[in-house]
């Protein structure tokens, strides 16, 4: 299990134990973390699982693919640390990952 922490826009912290191989989005839904809508269910077609991967994790998690970058056009308040959480697959290297959830998924 890999520890992933979600921080809501209002500061509420959710610490979860994620299964390796699952996406960060799926981890959020499984743990009832508010603010991750995931309208399309993980198909990278809706931009409603937008998160910020900040600090040291930005580089570790890596940049979005071209397709994901395109979908981020449909998100709001996009930052250099923006990612779609359905496209981040949990693995041992991400133990301790902290992601921030934007105020609105649109």
């Amino acid at each position, binding site marked *: 299990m890999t520890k992933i922490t979600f921080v809501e826009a209002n500061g509420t912290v959710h610490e979860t134990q994620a299964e390796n191989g699952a996406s960060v989005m799926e981890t959020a839904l499984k743990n009832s973390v508010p603010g991750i809508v995931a309208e399309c*269910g993980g198909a990278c*077609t809706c931009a409603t699982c937008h998160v910020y991967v900040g600090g040291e994790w930005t580089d570790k998690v890596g940049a979005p693919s071209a397709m994901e970058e395109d979908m981020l056009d*449909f998100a709001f308040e996009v930052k250099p640390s923006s990612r779609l959480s359905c496209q981040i697959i949990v693995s041992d290297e991400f133990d301790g990952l902290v992601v921030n959830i934007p105020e609105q998924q*649109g």
Partner: protein
Amino acid sequence: MNETHITTDVVVIGAGPVGLFAVFELGLLDLKCHLIDILDRPGGQCAELYPEKPIYDIPGFSVISGQELTDNLMKQIEPFGAVFHYNRMINNVKKLDSGGFKVIDDEGQVYECKVVVVAAGGGSFQPKRPPVPGIEVFEDKSVFYSVRRMEEFKDQDIVIVGGGDSALDWVLSLQPLARSMTLVHRRDNFRAAPDSVNKMKELVAAGKMKLILGQIGELNGENGMLSSMTIKSADEVLSIPVTRLLPFFGLTMKLGPVADWGLDLENNLITVDTEKFETSVPGVFAIGDINTYPGKLKLILSGFHEGALMSQAAKRIISPDERIIFQYTTSSTKLQKKLGVK
């Protein structure tokens, strides 16, 4: 607006896979359908959210894409001559004293029918509203999510936000009649067709419009009429004049007017029985993702089953004196005739 008053057996609201298959089951029972959908093509979520994505749980297909499933269903229901009305949202469903229903869409078209089938999935796909405080007061006055009448944009300071085909197409169409045109996009990379992007860049180079890389900030104006807005770019906040704003951030699912039709709801889903999939209003049925009942699973295959049972109940309402004989398409010459099997 000047279409005739349409009369039909069944109005199906939503042309996703479940609405499409309902046409098949209703058709085998000789019931004619009109389908209405807010999108410009059939398929619902399958077409809008995952046309190219594989679906693994359609019985008989180890894998099929949303688009393939839609295409196959369209072919399967072809013999039944259903009539499709796209780009329309149903605003109203009224019960008539004479029995039956009057269904009215957002363009004022009236459909009179004996049975209504709500197969609206997650609701209707509606434009995403940018999370800008107070944007609601400007909507339909100076903020628009689509262009219905180009005259609304004549001699205006137009700002279009987005980087896809909708944004770029409207930049090119509206620029000639605008007082000023500004395209705002968060990055210097566009999803729109390269040809449109090149044309836009030529206009920028010729000084006929502006391109600003940034995101929507604040909106300012009075009585719903915009006068200026701010754009947050990487290192500064710009203020620009604007009298018409067109944000294009794609679509999101909203329950929409379904909530106002007087049907019993539970957590924004329509409650139905599991014998007929009828709602709290007799003659109005709900099938697919939009309904709920004990044990409900939001699967396409569940929606197909619901459509089959619903059709039997719809037939009993529409032809109360006719005996329904249960038949198989494999062996019934009568059903095969309806399907056009030779």
